């Protein structure tokens, strides 16, 4: 704990110290031709990321006459929202949406609950063999999904849970990454505050609920967002653990739509893709600092 605390404060000092010289550099460099070249590179980088995403959104609202034409029609001549009606008519997107919300919502709630309990135990409860248990949990991240796929399918099948929500949700609620993020945060909480609560007679439940949870809220939110994203985007498990159209989630629904259209109606397929993508993009634009910070921070951890 002490090591990371000092490195954090020294980082902050660096930021303060470096502020002045960079200001000078900035003023001097601003008009140089190098700067112009850098801006050109930046424009190219933006184009690489933005053009495909623009292509997705613009095609979703283009009438067929704008899509099946060459030279390309970059800007839709009219707003053709019927693509969405077509997508939702061909594939039951309402149902897919509901399934995605249920599996993501319930799955995330369960995983984060397990993560919180474990993280609290590792950070705050005395136990002699903590390290091996921690290694057992963290080590599961080393197991790639493809070695567990087949047997999980057999297990869920034997339980009669194929095409059920519990079958979709349960295999992935074990928490290693989110648990580790939250544990790292809880470990850094000031010991005196928690000791004070204990001396005041607060038991573990009280300490968890009214001291530790509120103090680690930031990291819990980050872990929740990252967990939600990966569950929403999950593809291979819902693909194999469900076979009925009613139990498919949005990413599989997109594949279903594409099959139905057979590449025949790009407008509708892109509208379906926008339906799948939009919730994640909105979430990202709202909470990008937390998500990016959490993922980048985990690299250093």
């Amino acid at each position, binding site marked *: 704990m002490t090591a990371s605390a000092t490195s954090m404060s020294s980082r902050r000092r660096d930021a303060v110290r470096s502020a002045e010289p960079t200001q000078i550099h900035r003023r001097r460099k601003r008009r140089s031709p190098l700067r112009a070249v850098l801006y050109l590179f930046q424009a190219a980088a*933006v184009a690489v990321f933005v053009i*495909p995403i623009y292509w997705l959104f613009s095609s979703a609202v283009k009438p067929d006459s704008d899509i099946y034409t*060459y030279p390309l029609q970059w800007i839709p001549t009219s707003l053709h929202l019927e693509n969405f009606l077509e997508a939702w008519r061909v594939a039951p997107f309402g149902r897919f949406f509901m399934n995605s919300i249920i599996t993501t919502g319930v799955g995330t709630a369960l995983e984060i609950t397990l993560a919180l309990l474990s993280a609290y*135990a590792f950070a705050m409860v005395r136990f002699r063999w903590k390290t091996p248990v921690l290694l057992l949990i963290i080590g599961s991240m080393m197991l*790639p999904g493809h*070695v567990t*796929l087949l047997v999980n399918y057999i297990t869920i099948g034997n339980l009669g849970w194929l095409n059920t929500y519990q079958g979709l949700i349960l295999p992935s609620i074990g928490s290693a990454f989110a648990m580790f993020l939250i544990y790292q945060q809880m470990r850094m909480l000031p010991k005196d505050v928690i000791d004070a609560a204990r001396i005041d007679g607060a038991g573990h439940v009280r300490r968890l609920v009214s001291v530790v949870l509120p103090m680690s809220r930031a990291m819990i939110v980050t872990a929740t967002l990252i967990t939600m994203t990966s569950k929403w985007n999950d593809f291979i498990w819902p693909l194999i653990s469900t076979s009925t159209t009613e139990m498919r989630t949005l*990413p599989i629904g997109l594949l279903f739509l594409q099959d139905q259209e057979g590449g025949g109606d790009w407008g509708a397929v892109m509208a379906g893709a926008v339906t799948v993508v939009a919730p*994640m993009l909105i979430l990202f634009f709202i909470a990008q600092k937390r998500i990016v910070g959490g993922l980048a921070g985990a*690299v250093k951890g």
Partner: protein
Amino acid sequence: MSTVDLSSPPKVRRSGQWREPLLFVLLVLPNVAVIVIFAYYPAIYNFILSFSNWDFLTPRPEWVGLRNYINVFNSQQFYGVLWNTIIFVGVALVATLVGGLAIGTLLSQRLRFSGFTRTMAFAPHMLPGAAVGILWLFMFDPRYGLSRWLFSLVGLDSPQWTTTSDWSIWAITIAYAWQRLGFVAIIYYSAIQELPTEVLEAAKMDGATGLRLARSVALPLLSPVTFFLIITGIVSSAQAFDIIATLTNGGPGTSSSTLTWMVYREAFIDFDVGRSATTATVLFLLLAGVTLIQARTTGKKVHYS
């Protein structure tokens, strides 16, 4: 730690001795149970199944010893798929590392709009691979896709990206690299932000500038991050599935099938459980081997500041 215990009467202290470990076990048990049941047990049982022949239907697997392994290593197809995997993983890795470092450096130049660039760079990483695959399927469309326009700029016809065996592997590689590029760039960007300024200033004081500063000072300091990105890049691209499923279905033939795709296909399309378990085991061992070699060789060169 023990001061509180001293204030309690001896009787309570003795019961408290097992109360904490019990509480620990109760708190950790649900998580550990799920992980054991749905990660460790399946990984081990998958290994056992690789010595069997089974189609999901007959009551129990038939044990065949090493036959699956012999079949795998004697099949021409396996080596083709292995080569595809190496191309896919290798090209995506190099492209995202080089491109990501360049963009990450660019982002730390305090240009205007760099906040916007960061946001747009990271956005693809948030999207479901299925949607990314479908989007690129349209972009690759040789008649109405962006690809036709791009190739027409240099006077060429667009290749038939997803329907010919010469191009399909490049289609999935490009789409995958596009999705990961911004993530790598942002990781490099945040690592560059945290480079120790003392060291950089000292090097500048000694007369190091531009490329020399980047190559001899900044790059070595970034090596832990590069190491992390190589390992996670290999592991996650070797497991890429949704982009392949939506773009090419591993085809035509097996021209864009990677080992992970074969694990899926052998089990859930060909119903050859033993073969799928064998391919999964081989892929797992390959990944473990690459990670170990990486840790050995790069580990020595990594500079932790």
